[in-house]
């Protein structure tokens, strides 16, 4: 019985559709954090990718685009459930999104096992660049280590010796220090790991002042960083010990930091001041549509639909032809907010990293200004460990 249905079903499908059994739409599952204290990350990325879809006219290679959103609540198990639901019930062609490395670790297995493409628009878990790498995995962001590696390089270039390190006491926090120390050649004055979620940093600030370092390197993301930067400035330390950070100061948090962030430095893959027409159009249209300045999270999420579009076009409008999609996407032949770049053999971008600083504009308000290239065509440190298995 089952045998007979199996024979009949495709025949019916062929008879029902004129020509080939072709998809009319591409269904993209998008999983990110849309509730709770970290909802702002999801919001900035969703706004970015929907602007890209506007620019594409919500069409990819002749197909209509259908977005299916899922809220992971910043929890790996919820993210995995969302992926299961999107793969089985919504029959998505690919899954994208994800801000947190631990959520990515949970989601990627399901998607890759289903032989579907997964695109990270933020999370840069190092295993995905090395031993867990997969041809189904792409990122429009970076590998976690790349940004702190660029920061170590920047401090070498600026001849800053005796640097104080502060980071969060969890895996990503330690990874940031590892990445930094991989390239930084100077002396480390001291290092402090603070408690995740900490709100008062006066004790740490006193220790930093007592150590008299040449500069401070920090990874203090989200609201922790807003509190830290405010308190660091209130203590007056910004005048004597400049603060260099990664994933701490960005347009995502700048409203909260306010003027306290002026005079701080960070590294980023995104040159927000670049004259690249794609970038300029992105920033102008984003501000017009949403009324706020896009963050780097919005910029990397903007790239995701563009990347998928290049894949669908390469697969001649058939999103089920995963191999053809991947082959086209590997070329990174799409208008990116970072300009032209290439994908490494592990599908992590080989890209420039920039020195950015927060300056005061004519009205005294903080603006982020890109002030130089730190590393050109920076490759991540794991790609040699990567061997693709389909």
């Amino acid at each position, binding site marked *: 019985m089952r045998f007979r249905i199996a024979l009949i079903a495709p025949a019916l499908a062929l008879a029902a559709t004129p020509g080939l059994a072709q998809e009319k739409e591409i269904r993209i599952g998008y999983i990110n954090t849309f509730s*709770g*204290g970290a*909802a*702002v990350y999801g*919001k900035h990325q969703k706004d970015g990718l929907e602007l890209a879809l506007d620019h594409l006219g919500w069409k990819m290679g002749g197909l209509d685009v259908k977005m299916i959103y899922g809220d992971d609540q910043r929890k790996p198990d919820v993210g995995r459930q969302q992926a299961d639901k999107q793969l089985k019930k919504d029959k998505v062609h690919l899954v994208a999104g994800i801000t947190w490395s631990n959520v990515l670790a949970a989601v990627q297995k399901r998607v890759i096992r289903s032989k579907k493409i997964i695109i990270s628009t933020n999370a840069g878990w190092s295993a995905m660049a090395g031993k867990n790498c997969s041809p189904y995995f792409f990122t429009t962001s970076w590998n976690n280590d790349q940004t702190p590696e660029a920061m170590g390089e920047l401090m070498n270039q600026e001849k800053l010796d005796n640097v104080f390190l502060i980071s969060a*006491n969890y895996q990503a926090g*330690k990874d940031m220090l590892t990445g930094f120390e991989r390239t930084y050649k100077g002396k480390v004055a001291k*290092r*402090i*790991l*603070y*408690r995740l*979620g900490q*709100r*008062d940093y*006066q*004790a*740490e600030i*006193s*220790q930093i*002042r*007592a150590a008299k370092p040449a500069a401070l390197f920090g990874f203090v993301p*989200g*609201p*922790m960083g*807003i*509190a830290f930067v*405010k*308190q660091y*400035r*209130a*203590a*007056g330390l910004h005048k004597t010990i400049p603060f260099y950070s990664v994933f701490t100061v960005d347009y*995502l*948090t700048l*409203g*909260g930091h*306010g*003027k*306290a962030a002026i005079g701080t430095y960070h590294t980023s893959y995104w040159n927000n001041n670049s004259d690249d027409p794609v970038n300029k159009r992105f920033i102008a249209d984003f501000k017009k549509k949403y009324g706020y300045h896009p963050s780097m999270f919005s910029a990397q999420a903007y790239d995701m639909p563009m990347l998928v579009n290049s894949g669908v076009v390469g697969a001649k409008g058939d999103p089920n032809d995963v191999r053809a999609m991947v082959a086209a996407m590997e070329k990174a032949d799409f208008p990116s907010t970072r300009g032209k770049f290439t994908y490494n053999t592990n599908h992590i971008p080989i890209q420039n990293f920039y020195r950015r600083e927060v300056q005061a504009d004519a009205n005294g308000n903080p603006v982020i200004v890109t002030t130089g290239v730190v590393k050109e065509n920076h490759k991540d440190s794991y790609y040699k460990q990567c061997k693709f298995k389909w």
Partner: protein
Amino acid sequence: MTWLLLVEQTLNGAQFGVFLFLVSAGLTLVLGIMNVVNLAHGSLFMLGAYYAATFFGLTGSFLLALVIMVPLALISGIVIEVVALRTMYDRDHMDQVLATFGLILFFNESVRLVWGPESQPMPVPDFLDGSVEILPEAPYPVFRIVVILVGLAVGAGLYFLITRTKIGMLIRAGASNRAMVGALGVNIRLLYTLVFGLGAILAGLAGMMAGPIQSVEPGMGEDMLILAFVVIVIGGIGSIRGAVIASVLIGIVEVVGRSILPFAMANFMGEDAAQTAGPAVASMLIYVLMAAVLFFKPAGLFPAQAG
């Protein structure tokens, strides 16, 4: 670590303690006098910060923002009391915990709808920006000194209100025997509403003082709420004096522990392990302290006379 740094860290701890007192004063008042477990205290803390941040942004004046924030916090508190808590007085604590936990979710989501998920701008006001040198080579932010002064003023004001005024007498009487005070012709309902409103103002004030040194965002009150409960449990529920002493004690244990432990532990377990384990152990210290206090004095260090 030098002695001077140790002195500075103790001062930091005391300052953090006074801030904790600001957060927990309203909570101990409501729990001690009204016998209501109010988890929504953290939401009132958040609302105070949001009101202040909004009106500070609109008017450019921190003091004007304070003047506007106080009645708004009072109204928010009264609305919560009348709508949600009034029916909870005769229920047990578990029901109150559930109801006020629901309020936390409600307020976090409401704030996100009204203001958005981003952190709201709230800088240190210009006239309180800067630092003074209390210890040699260690300038101290003026705003933190103001937090200490506000905390001490709140403590003194509450102590005076509860022990020296007629309304304070009624509050204490209501805490001892609610039915009897009502029978004597005092409008106990109104009195409780006012006490809750006062608690809301104190929470809002704490939120406002937290704004310039922390992030004003949805859910900002939750971390503080846990510490505030530790404070009032150690200090003795309902005791203002106990809350002052317990919060300074916790502040010093937390801050000094955090700054010494990683380096002390490095002596016998290696630098790398100590850097990871140190902060983890330090963050447990206050709970160890709480357990020890509860073991020897189950009612806290200074059990309130009333209730």
